[in-house]
């Protein structure tokens, strides 16, 4: 008899949700970090700890630049609205 063992598996997904608006910078940074860095559950403790420190720093950096991108985008939108004469809306968006 010839047999071949084949295993099939379904991975674990993450769900991120928000209320009254979009995802926060923290949530987006965490999602991005998970895509960039994978730490195996069975990694040796010393390596896992080092990897976790690196992952935390990557997430902090991502969060900073996500916030910066949001501010810069709002700045561009604000100026575009001002140029079009919508000063009230421009000020509202600037204060977000």
């Amino acid at each position, binding site marked *: 008899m010839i047999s071949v063992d*084949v*295993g*099939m*598996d*379904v*991975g*674990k*997904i*993450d*769900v*991120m*949700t*928000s*209320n*009254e*608006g*979009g*995802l926060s910078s923290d949530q987006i940074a965490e*999602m991005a970090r*998970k*895509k960039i860095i*994978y730490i*195996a559950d069975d990694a040796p403790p010393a390596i896992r700890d080092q990897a976790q420190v690196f992952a935390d720093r990557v997430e902090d950096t991502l969060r900073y630049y996500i916030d910066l991108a949001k501010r810069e985008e709002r700045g561009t939108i604000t100026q575009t609205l001002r140029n079009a004469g919508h000063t009230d809306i421009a000020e509202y968006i600037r204060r977000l």
Partner: protein
Amino acid sequence: MAITQAMCTSFKTELLTGTHNFTNGANSIKLALYAISSGGKSSSTATLGATTTAFTTTGEVASSGSYSTGGGALTNVTPTSSGTTAFADFNDLSFTTATITARGALLYNSSASNKAVAVLDFGADKTSTSGTFTIQFPTANSTSAIIRIA
């Protein structure tokens, strides 16, 4: 009445008969959201698991924001392998300005008569209120990817 994470048994058979093609740009794989209590589009709640064979509207969450019944289309990442394990992956999927409570999801192939692929259990109700509902797929590797054949 439950949602149990599983690779659908019918999908395993259909792999052997060449029904599904996960190559980017080939079959359209969709993800539909389901509720087991409130949040369902009807009084019926979802019962999904290994025996699920196709997309069903029973227990699917109602349309809200950018979520429309039937679910959202996924962007396939062409399958690859590492070592002796082959795996498939998808880009993350977000539904915006949506009020949704879901307990799980069904991956299905809308290019193949809506045949079921896999059932995903969120472990608990996940809720967005006038916000974003994002499904993030795991790292695409031989130990974590969403669909793996070892």
